[in-house]
């Protein structure tokens, strides 16, 4: 009884110390990285690199195959070229880089599901985005000097994928201009500010000269030598359930046959 009381007292003091420690600790705010619910990723987490960018399918046959994992030949889906998808992580294996991708599939009723798996990076290419534009024009950039700080928002500020992309990625009712790091001046004399991080990763551009205009000139950067899309051929055996169902029936037949064979060969023991 005495020992129980002593242990209880120690546990209570320990819990009190924990409570004091955690209540006085600084709370660290970190950007949330969503890890995939993927068996291969979970077992190779330390070898995977965070990517978080968009890619576009560009397979040799006009479509790209998404696999269960970099070590398997089992395919999850075949995605037609020019399809855009999100890549969360990459993994290097024997000189090949594999990308963990989430491909959107639109149903007839408009709902969207996602096929997830791994694709070799040779079967796709990185979508030209704000980061790519920044890297390509780094020598032309100047530091942000506060050009935007006195701007009064009328409706909402548009954030573009890159200058001339024609693609709005975010809209803000207000913008803390101190998050703009660099400025780019385009051929038409418009200033663009690079927004790296603002309530999460943005990595896109604000037109400082005309931040709320929707119809800015579009000068898309298009990758050349793309392979034309071809609809992949689908057979019932490429579906989710039928291949496993047929395989299960075959395995069952083999099990029964083997069991009978064992019984016949060894019944005289």
């Amino acid at each position, binding site marked *: 009884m005495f020992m129980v009381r002593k242990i209880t007292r120690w546990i209570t003091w320990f819990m009190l110390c924990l409570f004091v420690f955690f209540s006085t600790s600084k709370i660290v705010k970190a950007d949330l990285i969503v890890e995939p*619910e*993927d*068996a291969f990723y*979970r*077992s190779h987490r330390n070898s995977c690199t965070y990517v978080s960018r968009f890619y576009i399918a560009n397979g040799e046959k006009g479509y790209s195959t998404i696999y*269960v*994992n970099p*070590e*398997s*030949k*089992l*395919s*999850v889906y075949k995605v037609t070229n020019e399809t855009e998808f999100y890549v969360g992580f990459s993994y290097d294996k024997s000189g090949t880089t594999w990308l963990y991708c989430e491909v959107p599939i639109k149903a007839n009723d408009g709902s969207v599901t996602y096929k*997830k798996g791994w694709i070799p990076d040779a079967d796709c290419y990185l979508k030209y985005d704000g980061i790519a534009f920044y890297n390509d024009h780094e020598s032309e950039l100047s530091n942000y000097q506060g050009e935007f700080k006195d701007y009064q928002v009328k409706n909402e500020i548009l954030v573009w994928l890159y200058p001339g992309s024609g693609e709005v990625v975010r809209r803000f009712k207000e913008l803390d201009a101190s998050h703009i790091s660099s400025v780019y001046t385009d051929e038409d004399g418009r200033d663009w500010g690079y927004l790296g991080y603002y309530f999460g990763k943005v990595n896109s551009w604000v037109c400082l000269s005309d931040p709320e205009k929707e119809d800015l000139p579009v000068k898309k950067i298009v990758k050349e030598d793309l392979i034309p899309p071809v609809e992949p051929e689908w057979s019932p*055996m*490429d*579906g*989710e359930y*039928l*291949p*496993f169902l*047929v*395989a*299960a029936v*075959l*395995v069952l037949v*083999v*099990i029964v046959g*083997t*069991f009978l*064979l*064992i019984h016949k*060969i*060894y019944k005289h*023991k």
Partner: protein
Amino acid sequence: MFLEIIQLLLLSLILTILIEVLFAICYGVRDKKDYLLICLGNVLTNPPVVLIHTWLLVTFSFGGLLIKLPLELLVIGIEALLYRKYAKQVFHPVLFSIMANVFSYFIGWVINWFL
């Protein structure tokens, strides 16, 4: 997908049989019928286990030890029962089954790691 599944099942079965036969040689098994029993035992257990594991992996991205361990224990149990009932030179069927399957799993892991 179906062809890939069948290829996977066949490859896994052949490799497992080769490894367990090798283990049986090292263990000292000499009876031919016992070797046949080892082969048939693996034909009985390996394909369904590999199929279940693959289906869970592809459909739910669910794999790892939480799945493999109970499946392997089931395999060990079934093979141990077969050896106990029919084998002539496998004198400790449960131990043999455990060791053969651990050996097979380990070699498979090494092969996979090098590939």
